[in-house]
């Protein structure tokens, strides 16, 4: 996925939905039938149970967010934080991404 360097916080929900759509839906014929575009990913959908995603995808997504917004968080620290602050649904992942962008490394403290 192309990362828009001028992305602002208001675009995070769209970025997250597009990322999840590409990773989970685009190559999955069954899911494609139900979810036609990133905008169809409702906040209550569970990444793992509903979208056949996984923890690695989520970590990878948040990693992209930190790179895009130049937030200095070590990968191991990010992983530790996620263990203690799990995000399961699309909405929770968007909230976490926004928190990470607005508060930086202090997001989970």
């Amino acid at each position, binding site marked *: 996925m192309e990362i828009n360097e001028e992305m602002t916080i208001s675009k995070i929900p769209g970025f997250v939905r597009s990322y999840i759509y590409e990773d989970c839906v685009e190559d999955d014929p069954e899911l494609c039938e139900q979810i036609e575009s990133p905008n169809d990913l409702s906040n209550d959908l569970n990444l*793992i149970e509903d979208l056949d995603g996984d*923890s690695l995808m989520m970590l990878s997504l948040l990693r992209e967010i930190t790179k895009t917004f130049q937030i200095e968080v070590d990968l191991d620290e990010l*992983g530790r934080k996620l263990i203690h602050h799990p995000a399961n649904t699309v909405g929770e992942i968007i909230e976490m991404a926004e928190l990470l962008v607005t508060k930086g490394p202090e997001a989970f403290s």
Partner: protein
Amino acid sequence: MKERNAYIIGTGSYLPGEPIPFSKAQSVLGELNDIKPKVKRWFDNNSELMREMLGINYYHYVIDPLTGEITDDMITMAVKASKNALELSSTKVDEIDFICYASPILEQMPTASVRIQAELGIDSCAEMSIHANCTSSYKALMVAAEFIESGRYNTALVVSSNIMSGAMTSEFYNQKVATREDILLRWFLCDGAGALILSSKKPAGRYLKVNSTYIESIGGNKDSMMFNRRPAYPYPLHKIYDQGMHHTAQSFRQALNSEAFIDPVTKKSLMFCGIERMLKKFPTDVSKLEFLQINLPSKQVVLTLAGELKDLKIDADKLYTNMAEVGYSGPPAVFICVDSIFRNEDADDGRLVISFVTEVSKFMQAGFVLECGNFVKNNIKINMELEDEVAC
């Protein structure tokens, strides 16, 4: 009952082929071009992330990167590591009266320990093969050390080898049914062998006294997180392939919010709790710790655990690993690491080496505590003279 001590008097390792950089590993194993597009995309998208998480810069494979030919097998690698350990300890093969071999399950008959015995030219000795994943080498060390301590045997070869690459090549998989779990380990594992020579006699040169060995199995009520899907009886090979039962899979999808790795009472990691139990069962002065090996193929997880170990007064700066340079070969990795310590490091007498592992196939855990002796510079090759030691 400990009648006498067991000493590691020599170590050896063998790593097949030239080091393969992380970026080249998938091409050596073979690209997965027939796998489901979603799985392929997932693998490609997460490679860089995994490189950061694992901290593995190089792998070793028995696969020739140019020709694809297999250059070693489990036995040849074990024999090469054993010969290195025998040479370093100046032990003659006819002194070996017990061989204990550790590896994941093998399908050959006769079992590996006797084939290693034959390749080394030992006409008669006792032998045993122990099969598990990463805990198997700890179990082999435990058995050999206890046999020596009890007086049953005097000189033991403990050896482990593993070829994981063969189970991760593009032609091994039935790619059409392979899942993310089935291919995850392509990032983690590679090939190698490691060996230890144990003796009842305290050497004049460098040694590691086996202070304690420990095993536990705490997954009786837990799901397996590393497995294949073969049934527990002989099953037609074409059906195994068709259904991908032969794939070695690792569950990970809920790794970040799974309770599987956390003790429900203490909220600490299972590995931390295991180390705590080991040190309680075998009281150890951790202020003497010199080298701590957390035997896991992930830098991220090791660093996370190291943070917890402060509660046991163990500092993260004691962590010791050579995984970045040699990769992680599963069962033999611990012996390869001990070999690196034995050959390359210095330590005052009485300083300790502690190693611990969690095997998620069914949450078995194991560890040991070794005590350094004569670990001064340039004394590596002076283990020729052994002193008889009376019962302690």
